[in-house]
């Protein structure tokens, strides 16, 4: 799966979870940048992303995710 497609599909998921219609999904985006990004919204985000791409993350995947770029890489790896 191309990165662009992943970003396009992630954008509405992020906007929904963080209730922010202007949120721009970039590689550098992380919990530091989004005010409501805490344990609760993180789990909701993970579960929404899993549904969107019909994948399941491993705990090790989650532990490695420092920013959205990491997330995109992990999603890509699931389709290889």
């Amino acid at each position, binding site marked *: 799966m191309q990165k662009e497609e992943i970003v396009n599909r992630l954008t509405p998921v992020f906007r929904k979870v963080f209730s922010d219609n202007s949120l721009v999904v970039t590689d550098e985006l992380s919990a530091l940048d989004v005010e409501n990004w805490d*344990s609760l919204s993180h789990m909701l985000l993970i579960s929404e992303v899993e549904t969107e791409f019909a994948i399941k993350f491993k705990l090790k995947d989650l532990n490695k995710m420092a920013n959205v770029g990491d997330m995109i890489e992990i999603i890509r790896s699931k389709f290889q």
Partner: protein
Amino acid sequence: MRSNSTFHSDVLTPFVAATEKFASHNAFCINGVFHSYRQLAETISAIRAEVKKMGAADNNVGLVANDDLETYAAIFALWFEGKSYVPVNPDTPAERNRNVLQQAGATVVIDSSDQPLYTEFNVVRSKELKAVAINLEPLPFDDEERAYIFFTSGTTGVPKGVPITRANLAGFIKAFFDLGITMDETDKCLQMFELTFDLSVMSYLAPLLKGACVYTIPKNKIKFNYIADLLEEHNLTVALMVPSIIHYLRPYLDEIHCESMRFSLFCGEALPLDVTSEWANSIPNAKIMNVYGPTEDTIFCTHYTYNRTGENKASNGLLCIGKAMNGTDTIIINENKEILPANEKGELCLGGVQLTPGYWKNEEKNKEAFFHIMYNGEMTRFYKTGDLCQADDAGDIMYLGRIDSQVKVQGFRVELSEIEFYAKEYLDKTNAVAIAFTNQLHNTEIGMVIESAEFDTKPMIEYMKSKLPSYMIPTQLRFINTFPLNTNGKIDRKVLKEKF
């Protein structure tokens, strides 16, 4: 059983011994960086030298709760000088923190931030102090002096202060180790709590009395992820957690295998039996304990050990909270303040060595929450917890729910009426009801129903964020034209709850 422990014998003396005997051992792992007991002792001594310059009137000292060695060292520096700490979380709205510091009468604030946050106070900048010779000589102070004051959610928009004395804290530490929880210089212990939350006190203090290492969680990290990482990378041996952590980890528990864990304690929220059983498989060598208690009775005061091989006592799927720890008395009373026998439902009340002398400068609340009753032939002071409970014939206590509208979010006490207070303040004449509901992850979330046609709630949420800590902000909003009423003519919260 009454303990003869003192703050000197059970807290300061073992702490000083640990800093001397294990000077080169790690006391803390903070954001991946280790700090030795010697560094801790040096940092305490430097802050203590500043604290010595304060007047005797400054007994309650503000402490900006950062995640660094200086902040932890400041707590001990204050204790060595007979003072108490009043923690404020820098992420909480400044107005609320100022209210807390003013209520406590603090004139000095110890702050390790790069830029001091509360400049109208006398600020001790703990990161910029001169090194001094180590001085951990305890001075004799009365154990009725305070060790700390923690502020919790109040019903009227103003946080209320719970002062805990040196005697209360010494009583807790004695009772804690009486539970058979052993620690030594090889232990690695989790400290996952913000310092404004009293579960942090056990998490940093107990290990430091034994020469063990305390692992903290950096701010802005996703807690349950970081904890899972610590379990795997550092082989933690002792952990006190809120149950919401294992709810978050539940989908991944088959990936966690932590043989090093010896004691896994849960507190702050009701602990479901089913998730506990799954967690038990991830930590095969640990003793799992459910502990319970409000801030008013110093951290926690009852305990129940999970049985790996047999039956467990539970009610509605929630693990029992067990029996009183040493030095604590528990009774269950009816509305007439009469002590109920076993197997009858009533309000759990707590007394004994860990019980706070009363809310800080709040006589009205004290009259509501504390009372005296004949118990074992003595007039004894008790605190009404607001928790609906029932004890069985063996004396084990089941938690059944709350009597009032207080709820727990990630272990934090939240008064729904305080959330409503600020929503209504913003909405002016529009009514709003805060509802606690259980989300699909089995964690408590705050919803709000507004009696109005739909409107953009962003400004209201922004306003609430300027007044309340983040865990008190509603995450889901609903609108309704008219609130449903129950047969008593009150707003029917049960019906509103179905909207989430």
